[in-house]
């Protein structure tokens, strides 16, 4: 799994590439929690994810709850059909703000 971070105004955009599973989700967790400390808004690009398991989804739920505690915003964009399927299987898609594109995600502030 590769993770990159860039700034777009007040939003930190985190991009992930590869597989998010039991072995890699701790790295994603650390990155997202750290990024959330340094920006009022965090947008996660899931377009280049090939695979995500429940540990990855659990990580996103933890980050979402932390963002709510801190009065910050955490949004997702670029969900492929494969990733969307996992969100539906875990019945948690409705708790996230999900956008198709980066432009839409950035425009939602």
């Amino acid at each position, binding site marked *: 799994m590769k993770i990159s971070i860039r700034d777009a105004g007040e939003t930190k955009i985190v991009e992930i590439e590869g597989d998010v599973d039991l072995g890699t989700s701790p790295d994603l967790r650390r990155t997202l929690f750290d990024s959330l400390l340094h920006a009022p808004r965090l947008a996660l690009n899931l377009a280049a994810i090939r695979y995500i398991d*429940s540990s990855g989804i*659990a990580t996103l739920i933890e980050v979402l709850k932390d963002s709510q505690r801190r009065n910050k915003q955490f949004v997702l964009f670029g969900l492929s059909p494969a990733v969307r399927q996992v969100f539906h*299987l875990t019945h948690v898609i409705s708790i996230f703000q999900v956008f198709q594109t980066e432009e839409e995600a950035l425009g939602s502030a």
Partner: protein
Amino acid sequence: MPSDPRYLPVVRGAICALSATMGWDESDCRAITLALDEALANIIRHAYHNRADGVIEVECRETADGLEVTMLDKGEAADGTRICARAIACDQPGGLGTHIIRDVMDTVSYQATPAGNRFVATKRLRKAT
């Protein structure tokens, strides 16, 4: 496979390829792969407590009506009262994996045996008529 998460992609690749060869479509192959990956992850986390030096025997067998997968480990036995104990469709991060397994597979069983903990899951292949 060793109880090391580094090997999960290897097994996922094999299960996905097997499911496709047996005739499931892309969406079903992804779901079956996810469910069985969740079962392996549960064994690593809960039976072996994230120790990487355990062994998980994985057997995939084509049956008359579909796929049967057996996983055998020698870690701590699962607590049956805690499997699927949490409600789904809420915003708690834990316990999602066992729900995925039960949603995707047709039958699922957990059994402590003298040879170790035995997980068996089956999925029927519904052939087009």
